[in-house]
């Protein structure tokens, strides 16, 4: 596919890959600075009285005793802040028909999930604020709670929102070809219903904000643990009726985010409201129970899916009916329809599948809201597809590699549009499958599996292919009306010492964004990476941009830095030419020295150039003004997204007496285009895989039938620990994208996309001789023993 950057000369080796991240050095020495580490003078603390019910009418709220407690500064409810905060609605124009009621920072009249914030208390310390919560008296009228997906879908059941005719928030249908005809003529049909358990983000640093409102200038400074400072600047501006230039959002070190820290949360908006009300800085740090109750949840889906194939194993069609429970609101501003949308579009996406019918039903419930999180929708689409592919392979007596090789889209087909509507520039499925088979020594593993099975040991091998959505352009949010930038900006300057400082709008939450931006700048300028300093995460000190989410940091942010570096380099060569009275086209920059290309010898160092240009410009020609800094912006071009691809495999053992799964090995072969930093790419993949493994084996937000969250501590919500995780082997293919000058795609979702799917396939492979099939996740020992008929 011809992209706008097809003939761009690209670097494939980047400066400084062998150096540790400066941020890693800092954190290893205990020098991190997270929001909770910041203490401002005169700072107050906010805590929340939360709904003990999943669904209840608020009859009355008595806060008098709380207000009178010594040390309490302010107490407010939703009704008290309607004059300073306008409500929001989580809708986007490109999801026509999506509906969700208006929301305020606190429950207004009715609480719709267990843990929804109802009353805010602001006090001199968090402890006093929590003491005051005990003194609040709310009279409730409990209402029936809508908890399960079927419960929500039931036509005559109770409603989450009485103003709507049903609990349906959104419906979407996709059609490609003629799936009915394909199913009518298929040799083989497989079908199943998967129930995927609701998870949450569980960043180790909880959600945090200090809102510091200066009433004298109506200026708000927010120190906010967020991925998206510009989006939050816009939201604070509009919903608190402030002036955009008077709103500054600073994201210091962010202790994990994974997509969880880019949504609008009532508590954070209430902290801003509190600061505006009292004219003092107000700190909100969620405790862990608050995090479980009110961070976004994700991926509660019930998917009925069918696949039609020929007797030779060619996939003809899929029919998918996916229902997802999103809690009581579509989350602002990115909506809770996006996850299901992507899940539906990713069904069958690695394969030559001409016919498809998909239906998505997004349902309201009385549980915490769900929204976008790492690998949005991918695990649902990939798990469903790969489960059906394995069912078909078993039915056709085909090897899992063979059936996938037969069906993956091939080099002669690109560019192509998938059945779900995605445009793929160029992928490398065949190469990835070949690499994986060798990497895992597949035949040897099958032999070992067979041998152990003779001895009553049940091991399974699961493989699965995926595509991954990265580098989103304006089609993602902007066209839907969301004020979320798809372009990014970079400011870059030469310091007088010859060192480089850059300020860029993509942000860092541990991925290594700052290191990668420094690498790109160092590479395209021709300087040492240690001579590049990077500033991120401050709306007042960096150009406006989209920041970091949906695997856009390296691909889009890196391209922004690249064009800024090329522009600054051009300026520096011109300045050198003026100083030396030479020809700029004969010069280059290598290791911080301007060199003569012909002789490869240094003609002037950047530090000497800086000295002359900044301190002795009088020695330069009259009316010559050296341009020592540049700003460049970059807009993603071409296709709406740059897709990556890959395959994963799992090898595991199921103890059929206890139902416990022991992960033995895990492999990933993936293709993120040009690799900017191998170690950081691999660690993104490993971290992502473990999120996927947690989701498939352990993690589940458990609600009682009354809608009480039963898993609100880290002892009850089980996330992966080191002794449960395998080493993860990684290999790469490199298919650059021509849609960005840099040629790099994203990699943050790849690990999570298929890790769960291959474990499900491996467990079902292990249990195949026992006629047991798992279809509900997470794959707890209880579910495995139930499938085995043992309990």
């Amino acid at each position, binding site marked *: 596919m011809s992209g706008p950057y097809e003939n761009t000369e690209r670097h494939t080796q980047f400066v400084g890959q062998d150096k540790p991240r400066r941020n890693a050095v800092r954190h290893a020495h205990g020098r991190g600075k997270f929001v909770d580490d910041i203490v401002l003078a005169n700072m107050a603390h906010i805590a929340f009285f939360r709904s003990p019910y999943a669904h209840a009418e608020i009859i009355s709220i008595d806060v008098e005793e709380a207000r009178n407690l010594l040390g309490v500064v302010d107490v407010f409810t939703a009704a008290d802040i309607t004059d300073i905060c306008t409500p929001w609605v989580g809708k986007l124009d490109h999801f026509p028909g999506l509906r969700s009621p208006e929301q305020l920072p606190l429950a207004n009249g009715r609480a719709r999930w267990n843990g929804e914030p109802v009353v805010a208390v602001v006090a001199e310390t968090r402890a006093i604020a929590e003491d005051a919560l005990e003194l609040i008296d709310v009279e409730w009228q409990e209402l029936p709670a809508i908890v399960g997906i079927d419960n929500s879908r039931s036509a005559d059941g109770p409603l989450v929102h009485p103003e709507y005719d049903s609990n349906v928030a959104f419906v979407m249908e996709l059609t490609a070809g003629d799936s009915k005809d394909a199913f009518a003529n298929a040799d083989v049909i497989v079908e199943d219903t998967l129930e995927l358990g609701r998870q949450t983000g569980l960043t180790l640093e909880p959600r945090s904000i200090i809102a510091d409102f200066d009433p004298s200038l109506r200026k708000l400074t927010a120190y906010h643990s967020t991925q998206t400072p510009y989006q939050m600047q816009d939201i604070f501006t509009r919903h608190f009726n402030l002036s955009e230039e008077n709103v500054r959002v600073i994201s210091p070190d*962010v202790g994990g985010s994974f997509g969880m820290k880019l949504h609008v949360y009532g508590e954070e908006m209430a902290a801003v409201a509190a600061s505006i009300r009292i004219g003092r800085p107000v700190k909100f740090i969620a405790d*862990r129970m608050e995090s479980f109750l009110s961070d976004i949840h994700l991926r509660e889906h019930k998917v009925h899916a069918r696949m039609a194939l020929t007797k030779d194993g060619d996939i003809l069609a899929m029919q998918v009916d996916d229902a997802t429970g999103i809690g009581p609101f579509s989350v602002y501003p990115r909506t809770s329809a996006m996850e299901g949308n992507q899940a539906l579009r990713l069904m069958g996406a690695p394969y030559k599948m001409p016919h498809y019918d998909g239906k998505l039903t997004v349902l309201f419930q009385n549980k915490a809201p769900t929204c976008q999180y790492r690998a949005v929708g991918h695990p649902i689409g990939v798990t469903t597809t790969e489960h059906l592919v394995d069912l078909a392979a078993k039915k056709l007596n085909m090897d899992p590699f063979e059936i996938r090789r037969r069906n993956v889209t091939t080099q002669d087909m690109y560019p192509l549009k998938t059945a779900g509507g995605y445009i793929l520039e160029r992928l490398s499925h065949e190469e990835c499958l070949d690499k994986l088979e060798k990497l895992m020594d597949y035949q040897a593993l099958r032999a070992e599996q067979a041998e152990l099975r003779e001895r009553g040991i049940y091991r399974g091998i699961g493989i699965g292919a995926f595509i991954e959505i990265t580098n989103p352009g304006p089609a993602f949010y902007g066209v839907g009306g969301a004020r979320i930038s798809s372009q990014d900006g970079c400011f870059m300057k030469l310091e007088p010492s010859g060192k480089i400082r850059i300020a860029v709008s993509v942000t860092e939450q*541990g991925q290594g964004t700052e290191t990668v931006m420094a690498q790109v700048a160092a590479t395209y300028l021709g300087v040492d990476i240690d001579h590049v300093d990077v500033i991120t995460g401050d709306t007042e000190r960096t150009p406006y941009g989209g920041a970091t989410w949906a695997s856009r940091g390296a691909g889009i942010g890196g391209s922004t830095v690249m064009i800024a570096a090329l522009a600054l380099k051009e300026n520096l060569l011109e300045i050198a030419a003026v100083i030396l009275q030479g020809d700029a086209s004969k010069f280059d920059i290598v290791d911080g020295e301007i060199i003569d290309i012909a002789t490869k010898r240094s003609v002037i160092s950047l530090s000497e150039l800086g000295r002359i240009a900044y301190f002795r410009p009088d020695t330069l020609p009259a009316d010559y003004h050296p341009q020592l800094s540049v700003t460049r912006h970059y807009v993603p071009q071409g296709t709406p997204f740059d897709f990556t691809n890959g395959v994963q495999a799992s090898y595991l053992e199921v103890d059929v007496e206890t139902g416990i799964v022991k992960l033995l090995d895990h492999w990933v072969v993936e293709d993120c285009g040009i690799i900017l930093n191998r170690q950081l790419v691999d660690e993104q993949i490993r971290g992502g895989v473990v999120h996927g493994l947690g989701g498939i084996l352990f993690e589940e937000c458990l609600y009682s039938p009354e809608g009480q969250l039963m898993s609100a501590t880290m002892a009850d919500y089980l996330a992966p620990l080191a002794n449960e995780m395998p080493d993860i082997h990684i290999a790469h293919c490199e298919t650059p994208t021509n849609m960005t000058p840099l040629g790099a795609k994203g990699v943050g979702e790849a690990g999570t996309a298929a890790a769960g799917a291959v474990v499900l396939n491996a467990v079902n492979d292990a249990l195949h001789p026992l006629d047991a099939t798992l279809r509900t996740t997470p794959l707890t020992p209880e579910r495995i023993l139930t499938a085995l008929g043992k309990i």
Partner: protein
Amino acid sequence: MDPSYALSFKLNGRQVKQEVSPRTSLADMLRNQMGLTATHIGCEQGACGACNVVVDGKTVRSCLIFAIQMEGAEIETSQGFEGDPLMATLRENFANRNALQCGFCTGGMLLAARDLIKTTPKPNREEIREHISGNFCRCTGYEAIVDAIWKTAHEALDLEGEK
């Protein structure tokens, strides 16, 4: 307002005095009253390990201990260990191997790692994984952490002169 009580204890090698209220946790005292913010609070339930500190030679959760229990104690936090070659090597290997991403779990993880190498000088990977399984990391998937600890334990490091 809460009553407060004067304590005297040793913190990162120095004798200090501090007034605390009876309900203040050790983690809150270290962070809010003594400015030692690398002791992170991830759960306040003793589950996550980000608040690990060493009290009288034992690695413990500072969120589960009241500060008022610290009278006469010897406390080391992840910001201490000045001149400790094992901690210096762990820090270097963690950074080089990218055994941390966001950095929130790192202080607690370093203390767990040091504790292991002190008691099991040449641990294998399983032993490392087992020992750090009281510490959550949500970013790395643990493999890089295991690598960094393994390298520290197995490289020729002269720990003889260490306390």
